[in-house]
């Protein structure tokens, strides 16, 4: 009666565009050393070479290859965004599940904690964290995860709250199932869809935060990233537009693709909108 999930997802043209672009970015990140010979920090030619000429996508003020930067930058940006999101999902999911499942005082405590984190403007908080921890790849991941777990906790708590009162969970209680098993076997599998959707959209936010941090010079040193390229190129905006435009467009397309895929996932997974 209903078409398989993957077919429904790919049949959506916007999701298909998003998936194709994301696939290309992931492929480029994985194969970076093969498709870009030069180290992104190595000087490969004369500075300010125009793009689409003999030097690929051009060079920056020091003569470093923009193409290399783009490809290795994809590596950094994606890796940091995905790890940060996974940590946020794990931590936020745990907090939300405990709060929703046990309710009462535990819920009050955990949710007030969540709200405390939510009241701080997230980007300023992230800057603060990186500055305190000294800039490194790890501290960027920690900073992004710290500012992005609260929405996950809220989504999971809401799902767990409704699922906990469902009869199949009560049946598991009456069979003598342990709390951890009820959470893992009965509740979480049924709360996965909203978690996947929120999580995928969070990757987009994480990319933006990472880029913004790198732009401010708070990114991981010694690692090329898209935000760093935009930051480094901004002083030559009028002479060498491509230094900002190329990584900027890469960020734009990637974030857009993730949002499109996330929305399509939501449509495909959300039973209320499901019109097979």
């Amino acid at each position, binding site marked *: *009666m209903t078409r398989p999930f993957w077919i429904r997802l790919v049949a959506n043209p916007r999701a298909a565009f998003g998936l194709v672009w994301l696939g290309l970015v992931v492929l480029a990140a994985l194969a970076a050393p093969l498709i870009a010979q030069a180290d992104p920090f190595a000087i490969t030619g004369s500075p300010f070479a125009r793009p689409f000429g003999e030097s690929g996508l051009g060079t920056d003020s020091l003569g470093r290859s923009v193409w290399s930067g783009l490809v290795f930058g994809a590596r950094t940006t994606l890796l940091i965004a995905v790890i940060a999101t996974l940590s946020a999902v794990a931590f936020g999911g745990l907090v939300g599940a405990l709060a929703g499942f046990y*309710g*009462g*005082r535990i819920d*009050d405590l955990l949710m007030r904690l969540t709200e405390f984190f939510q009241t701080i403007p997230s980007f300023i908080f992230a800057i603060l964290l990186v500055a305190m921890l000294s800039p490194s790849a790890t501290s960027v991941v920690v900073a992004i995860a710290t500012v992005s777990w609260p929405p996950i906790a809220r989504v999971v708590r809401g799902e767990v709250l409704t699922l906990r009162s*469902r*009869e*199949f969970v*009560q*049946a*598991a*209680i*009456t*069979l*003598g*199932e342990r*709390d951890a098993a009820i959470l893992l*076997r*009965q509740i979480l*599998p*049924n709360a996965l869809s909203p978690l996947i959707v929120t999580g995928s959209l969070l990757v987009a936010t994480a990319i933006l935060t990472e880029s913004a941090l790198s732009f401010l010079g708070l990114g991981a040193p010694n690692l090329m990233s898209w935000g760093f390229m935009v930051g480094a190129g901004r002083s030559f905006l009028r002479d060498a537009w491509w230094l900002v435009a190329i990584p900027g467009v890469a960020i734009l397309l990637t974030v857009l693709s993730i949002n499109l895929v996330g929305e399509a996932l939501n449509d495909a997974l959300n039973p209320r909108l499901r*019109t*097979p």
Partner: protein
Amino acid sequence: MNAAPTATVSAGPILDISELSVALPSWADRPQAVKQVSLQIGAGETLCVVGESGSGKSVMARAILRLLPEPQVRIVDGRVLLEGEDLAHADDKRMRAVRGGKIAMIFQEPMVALNPLMTIGRQIDEILEAHTDWGKAERRRRVVATFEDVRLPDPARIFGAYPHELSGGQRQRVMIAMSLVLEPRLIIADEPTTALDVTTEAQILSLLKELQQRHGTALLFITHNFGVVAEIADRVAVMRRGEVVEHGDAEEVLTRPRHPYTRALIEAVPSLVPRKGIAGTDKSAAEPILEIRRLDKIYGRRAQGASWLTRWMPGLGRGRRQAVHAVNQIDLDVKRGSAVAVVGESGSGKSTLARCLIGLEQADAGSVKIAGNEIVGLSRSAWRPLRSRVQMVFQDPFASLNPRTSVGDIIARGAILQGEAPDAAMSQARELLTLVGLEPKAAERYPHEFSGGQRQRIGIARALAVKPDILIADEPVSALDVSVQKQVLDLLDSLRRRFGLTMLFITHDLRVAAHVCEEIVVLKSGRIVEHGKTAEIFADPRHEYTRALLSSVPGRDWQLRLVGSSAGPGTD
């Protein structure tokens, strides 16, 4: 264009539906929700359309008012003549005038149909404002008069009240007042009493009938309940998969059904004649397996959700909630091997009692002993060894099975938790599936592949997997269609006898109680008002409330007559 001829029409039918067909979208299970249906209703007449879920009865009712989710579901053929005017082809402006003006609709769930943020009076006033050019005072007079008509107490107060301040029965009276206020020619009532308690249902049905006779309105009544049909119908149309399979005089259809489907439906209505105790199984000597003493459960006095925050700032919401004594000093002994029905209306505390017995709620005071083991005050882990003693069958078969777990795992899990090896538990699960009337290979499939009745069978198998002594069934058939209800009840009954189970059967339906239980406990506001043998209570109810419950069962006279004339549904 139709003013001249219709002004004098009175003899012809108010509503004349001919060859009406409603198409469903391509992904539905059948091409047409309603197929070539022809029906007429005259002034002052009640036509009951009966059918199970998916029969197309509600779609048909909505098609008359053109309230279908077009364009996916739309009228493709036929005419709907209201006093000669074809509504199937009327434009939207005309339909707005017809809805509420000439045809009114009463819905199943009055709480959903009423706007919670608007006073009752204003909601009805709005209808008059839209359809008439009366002044404010005149409209108010009319609304209050209609409230009196539907016998709402204190109409002036109700006028200024919000929906949540009224009881369910009062809300349904408001809905009826709403539909009557413009004196429509036709009222369509879609399961208007299904969400109500029996005693309220009886009042609403007699009110509808009385009002209809007084105003000469035509009434199209959609229901799945043959008891209600017997109470109210002049004529009956039985629908199945979008088609009218039988159509005729109510008396005729109810006592001498011609179509096999109608006959099956009527036979599936559980008999009101209480079952006799099974010969040779007199339980009076058996020892009690469940002893309940002075059990108390109070909600809201110190709500579990009340946080330390509300204690510091009592103005914050929940603190003001009134305490509800859901279970009030209940004493009950259940003997091994007996079947006891706990009967009561909503809010009687019957479900809370069940949840206290199975450890889903913690009782506040009193004692419950299951085969000698005290359970009140036990922690979840201390409960665990007792889980194999008492099990529960849940109400909603669509919510009680984890959609992401295979049926085999669902059933086998309980035995595994009790220490059974996974392989043995799984083969036992297959045996249980056969026992409840399903294929053993159903174990590999997932709950969504099964119908409501089949899912309830899976739920029963899950409960039996740990070999319990006591089975608590919380309204196990109230979410099922009539024809399936009886099968599930019979299954429970035969399993109970086969395994010598003790059964506590929570229900609001006296018919169901009479069908499966020899003993009845009547609960009202958390207290036991009557307790005894089913046959004795049915023959001679002592308590006033039990009498009210019994006399409110819809279609009671019809069924007793059927049994008397012996031409009735064959009960084996």
